[in-house]
């Protein structure tokens, strides 16, 4: 009997804890509902209806219109190449950092993150100042009798801006995964007969795939949906899908079409995330979907 009452009171205690836990979760539930779930439902409803509120799939398939298709293609290629360039910069840098004798690697990490402390629109304006036709770069080029470069208002300018903006988001997970490989695992590979190249291809690379996957998601997804960089560095001449969606909402005021394009874009983003987000659970840097 005594034991029974003890157990009961323990159970009550557990129940109380559970109730308290639920109370603490309320702010987060409100946050998620208010800023994620409800807007998402709103967008989804707008996407499958027309101005009169009747069901239609036209908005969802509007992405295949020639104009939109062109913008989607531009978005995809800019996102693809900016992600690729970020990997090509971040991966060798991480390998070099790992093998270097620099003992205080956190300082390097700090320097890498430093630009993220500044508003990214400001940084893009700075890039604009550097590469505009009468900008700092061309001033230096003409000063040494070289022909000025016309980069501003081309896809190259957008690519440059995106790489500049998103590089830390690639660098952090990749560096993290490369640095977290234990030294004795690499020594074991050498011990078993691997030269430096084989250690890189058979040990370091496969063990850092998780970090690369995270980096791809963190760079590819935002650059797919980017429109501010395109506005500033593209001079309004290059249309990314993000720009078109923005215009549907703010200029044309066709929220149904804007929502439809957003949902289609979201589908693209989800598919790529799923491709690269797999097998990420092992790495600390991994963000698995």
């Amino acid at each position, binding site marked *: 009997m005594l034991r029974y009452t003890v157990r009961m009171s323990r159970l009550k205690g557990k129940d109380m804890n559970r109730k308290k836990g639920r109370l603490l979760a309320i702010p987060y539930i409100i946050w998620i509902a208010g800023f994620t779930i409800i807007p998402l439902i709103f967008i989804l409803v707008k996407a499958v209806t027309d101005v009169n509120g009747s069901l239609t799939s036209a908005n969802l398939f509007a992405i295949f219109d020639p104009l939109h298709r062109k913008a989607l293609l531009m978005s995809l290629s800019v996102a693809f190449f900016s992600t690729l360039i970020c990997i090509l910069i971040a991966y060798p840098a991480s390998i070099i950092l790992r093998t270097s004798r620099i003992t205080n690697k956190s300082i390097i990490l700090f320097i890498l993150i430093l630009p993220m402390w500044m508003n990214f629109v400001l940084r893009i304006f700075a890039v604009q100042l550097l590469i505009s036709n009468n900008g700092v770069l061309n001033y230096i080029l003409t000063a040494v009798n070289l022909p000025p470069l016309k980069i501003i208002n081309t896809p190259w300018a957008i690519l440059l801006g995106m790489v500049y903006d998103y590089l830390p988001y690639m660098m952090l997970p990749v560096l993290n995964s490369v640095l977290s490989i*234990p030294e*004795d*695992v690499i*020594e*074991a*590979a*050498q*011990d*078993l*007969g*691997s*030269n430096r190249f*084989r250690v890189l291809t*058979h*040990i370091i690379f*496969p*063990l850092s795939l998780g970090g690369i996957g995270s980096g791809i998601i963190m760079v590819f997804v935002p650059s797919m949906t980017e429109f501010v960089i395109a506005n500033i560095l593209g001079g309004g001449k290059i249309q990314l899908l993000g720009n078109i969606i923005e215009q549907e909402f703010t200029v044309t005021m066709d929220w149904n079409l804007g929502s439809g394009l957003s949902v289609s874009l979201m589908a693209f983003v989800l598919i790529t995330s799923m491709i690269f987000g797999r097998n990420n659970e*092992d790495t600390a840097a991994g963000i698995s979907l």
Partner: protein
Amino acid sequence: MEKELIRFENISKSFDSTDVLKDLTLSIHENEFVTLLGPSGCGKTTTLRILGGFEMPDSGRVFFDGMDITSLPPNKRQLNTVFQKYALFTHMNVAENIAFGLKIKGQDKSMIREKIAYSLKLVGLEGYEKRSPSSLSGGQQQRIAIARAIVNEPKVLLLDEPLGALDLKLRQDMQYELIRLKEELGITFVYVTHDQEEALTMSDTVVVMNQGRIQQIGSPEDIYNEPQNAFVADFIGESNLLDGIMVRDCLVNIGGLDFPCVDTGFGTDNPVDVVIRPEDVELSSSGEGQTKGRVISIVFKGVHWEMHVESDIGITFLVKTTDHFPVGSTVGISVDPYNIQIMHKPVSEDAQVYGQDESSEGEGYEP
């Protein structure tokens, strides 16, 4: 004695101006089980890493089978290492881990498959080919690490505290496994540990190290029974470490009382260190013996009683015996001449450093 396989010649190494190895010279023979034993920071791991090719000595040379391998990279050496934390490749399954070295050598697939099966059988993990290393227990992971190393048929297997991360029971089982493995493979084992029991159980030869210097090289029996200095005596097992004066050959004065012993060549009236193992102090209830004493504490240790006996010559002896004497009782104390071990006092502090954290367990980073 078998043929010499490895020779360290005057090896010195320092990290950040700390001397880790000081002029170390050591020979290891074919088919020998050599254990480098010592406390944290004594240089044993560094010695092993120099042999494995992971560190370069500042000065001195390493010879392998007559060849100078001092600057040879690890992948070119005919030896394999078992690491303390296993260092398995987590992105490969057990079979791929074991096949790693064989694939580099370009052996054909059926041969590799056969060797994987054989090495798994040797370590008692048949049928584990497809398992992932992270699904295995610590002891199983260590067996895979051993299989991964021995499958390459190295002439020497280096083991860096391989049992350090395992629990006591498993550690004892693995000690016998390793002895069996060595006998089956017929290769040289170089083993690093700070655990004296491990060293005594498995080794043919024990190399006791402290502060970058070799203190004594010998068989486990030699090291235990005939320690050459106070550090070795204190590090290996428990002991009564006493100050004495060598009156003449075969007679030592401890605390004013002369004890017959069997050691010679220490001169006359020279101060010496004396070691008497706790199990070698004989007590008698009658009070007869070389001196008398009073039992001041007694603790039951399972096989024996461990007690402290305060003697009339002013020395408190640690005694291990299967007889029980109550606290406060008077006992006779005597020591067989063969069980008194005489050692030279250290000449300089550099030659021998006594009592450096001998109780350290599970050391962390050791340069």
